[in-house]
C-alpha cells in the first residue's frame, strides 16, 4: 500500500495549471499503487488551493501555513515538506519540474536519503515501484530511471500529461498544519517584478521565439506582440540573448530553458543544435525564416520561408482579428 505525497503550487489560492496536471497524475498513480494521493499546498490561501485538488480526484490534502512559508524559500518549503513526508511516510513524492519544484525536491530526497528523478516526461508504476523517463543533455537523449530506495521521488515536466478533471465540484478533505519555524539562514528581503509579467517559459503553452535576425531589443516587440495575441510567452535563441536583445530568462536551449509548449513559433531562428534540444518536445513547431536551408525547417511541422518582419506582424494582425484580442 503505497501513498503519494505531491507538492501542489498555487497563486493566492488558485492552483497552477501544472499542479492540476500533477494532481490528476498523482491520483491515477496512487490508485495503481493501492494507496492514496495526498496533496500539499503551502503559504497564504493554501487551504483554498488544497480543497480545489478534489476536482482532480485527490481526496486528501494538507494546507501548510505560517510565517516561514509566507514566501517561497527552498529551505523553508523543503523543511515543511520533509516533515510531512516523515509523518505520512509516502512511497512516492512528486512535484512539478517548476522553479519551485526543482529547488525543493532535491532537499527532501537528501534528507530522506532516497532517489530522485528530475524533469521527467513520463512516470509510471512498474513492479510496485516508480519508474521514470527523463531527458538528458536538454533533450538530446532520453534515459530510464529505476530507484533502489523504498521511497521514490520525481519532478515532472509541465505539459507532459493531460489535465484530468475527474471529479468536477468535489473538494478534498483538508487538514491544516503550521509550518516549522526554524531559524533559516536565508531570508527573502524583497520580491521585484522587473519586466512585463509573462508565464514562465517552462510552463507556457505557447511560445514565440526570436533569433539574432530580429536585430535589436526594440524589434523584439514584434515577437512580443504575437506572443501576447496568442496568450503565450517570449523565447529567444542564445544568439539573440548574447547580442543583448533580451534577458537570459527568455533563452531556450541547452544553456537556457528546456520548454514543452503546445505551440512553438520560431522566428528568425536557424536552429542550432543546442536550441533544438531545448524545444524539440514542443507539440507543434512553426518556423519562420528567410533561409530555406535553415536546420529549423527540418524539425518544424509548418514552415514559412519568408521575412519575419513581414510575416510576423501580418500573422499577428490576422490572429488578433480572429481571436478578438
Amino acid at each position, binding site marked *: 500500500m503505497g501513498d503519494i505525497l505531491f507538492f501542489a503550487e498555487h497563486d493566492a489560492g488558485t492552483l497552477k495549471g501544472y499542479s492540476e496536471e500533477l494532481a490528476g497524475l498523482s491520483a491515477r498513480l496512487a490508485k495503481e499503487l493501492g494507496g492514496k494521493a495526498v496533496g500539499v499546498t503551502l503559504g497564504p490561501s493554501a487551504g483554498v488551493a488544497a480543497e480545489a485538488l478534489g476536482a482532480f480526484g485527490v481526496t486528501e490534502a494538507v494546507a501548510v501555513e505560517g510565517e516561514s512559508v509566507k514566501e*517561497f524559500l*527552498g529551505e523553508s518549503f523543503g523543511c515543511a515538506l520533509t516533515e510531512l513526508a516523515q509523518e505520512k511516510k509516502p512511497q512516492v513524492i512528486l512535484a512539478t519540474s*517548476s*522553479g519551485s519544484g526543482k*529547488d525543493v525536491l*532535491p532537499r527532501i*530526497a*537528501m*534528507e530522506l*536519503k532516497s*532517489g*530522485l528523478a*528530475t*524533469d521527467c516526461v513520463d512516470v509510471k508504476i512498474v513492479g510496485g515501484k516508480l519508474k521514470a523517463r527523463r531527458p*538528458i*543533455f536538454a533533450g*538530446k*537523449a*532520453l*534515459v*530510464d*530511471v529505476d*530507484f*533502489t530506495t523504498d521511497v521514490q521521488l520525481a519532478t515532472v515536466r509541465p505539459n507532459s500529461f493531460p489535465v484530468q478533471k475527474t471529479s468536477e465540484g468535489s473538494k478534498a478533505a483538508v487538514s491544516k498544519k503550521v509550518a516549522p519555524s526554524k531559524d*533559516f*539562514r*536565508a*531570508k*527573502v*528581503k524583497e*520580491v*521585484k517584478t*522587473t*519586466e512585463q*509579467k509573462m508565464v514562465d517559459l517552462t*510552463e507556457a503553452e*505557447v511560445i514565440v521565439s526570436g533569433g539574432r535576425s530580429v536585430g535589436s531589443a526594440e524589434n523584439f516587440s514584434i515577437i512580443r506582440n504575437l506572443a501576447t495575441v*496568442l496568450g503565450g*510567452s517570449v523565447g529567444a535563441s542564445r544568439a539573440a540573448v548574447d547580442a543583448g536583445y533580451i534577458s*537570459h530568462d527568455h533563452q531556450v536551449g*541547452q*544553456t537556457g530553458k528546456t520548454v514543452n509548449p503546445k*505551440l512553438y513559433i520560431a522566428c528568425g531562428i536557424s536552429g542550432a*543544435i543546442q536550441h533544438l534540444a531545448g524545444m524539440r*518536445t514542443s*507539440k507543434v*513547431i*512553426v518556423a519562420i525564416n528567410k533561409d530555406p536551408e535553415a536546420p529549423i*525547417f527540418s524539425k*518544424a*511541422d*509548418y*514552415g*514559412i*520561408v*519568408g521575412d519575419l518582419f513581414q*510575416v510576423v506582424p*501580418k500573422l499577428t494582425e*490576422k*490572429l488578433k482579428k480572429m481571436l478578438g484580442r
Partner: protein
Amino acid sequence: MKIGVLLKQTPDTETRVKIKPDGSGIEEGEIKWVINPYDEYAVEEALRLKEAAGSSEVVVISAGPKRSIDSIRQAMAMGADRAIHINTDGSFLDSYLTAVVLAKAVEKENFDIFFAGKQAVDDDNVQVSHGVARLLNCPCIWPVEHIELSGGGKSVTVTRPVSGGIKEIIEMTLPGIICCDKGEHDPRYASLPGIMKAKSKPVQEIPVATLVGGETAKVKWSGFTLPPERKAGKILKADDLEQVCDELIRLLREEAKAI
C-alpha cells in the same frame, strides 16, 4: 575568505549525442569536454568575490574521471588557486553519491562559501549542490544571477530569478552554497601567463573509493535512447503574404488544433 567552486566537466553544448549500441550510455569518443557552462559562471563569481574580499583563496573541487583534470586546470588558468580532484574512474556516481563524496572531501576545510553552476548541462539533474548543502548543514540558493557581499562579509545578498520576470532578493548567512545562473558577468578568458601558472598550481587527487564510506547509489540509469526524429512538415513559401498567413492559421486551427 575561503571560497570553493564545485565544478563538473561536461560535453560542449554543440555536441551531437551518440548512444552506445546496447543503450547503456553515451558514446564518449568524439566528445569535446569543457567546463560545464554554468560552472564557468561559478568560477567567475568566485574570482570576483576573491578580488572584492581580498586575501582569499579559491579552491576548485571536482568529482569526475581522469579527463576532468583538463577542466580543473582551465579553472586554475582563469585564476583559481588550487584544486581537489576526486577521481571517479571506473565508478558510477548518481547525484546522491556525488554529493556524498564532494561533502566528504571538503568537510575539514571550513569553506566560507561555495559557488556551483545551477545545473550540469549533461545530465541536468539539479541535485548535487542541494545535497552537498544538506550534508554540510548550510543553506543553498538556487538559482542566482547576481551576488554581493553584505553584513560586513558575514553574509551575501543575491538575486534569484523566480519565473516570468520576478526576482527575489535573498540574504544568506555564510557559510552557504550559491548556484549560479547566467548573470551579468561573462566568464573571463584564461590569459597565457594564467595558463602557464596553472600548470604548477597544486591539485590534490583523491580516489573516490576512499570517500564513499559504504554509501550506495539511489537510482540506476538504463535504456539510453535518442528522441524520436521530428519529421519535416509543410513548407509554405511567402510569395503572397496574405495567403500564406491565412493558410498557416488554417493549418494551426484545423489540422494541428494548436490555436
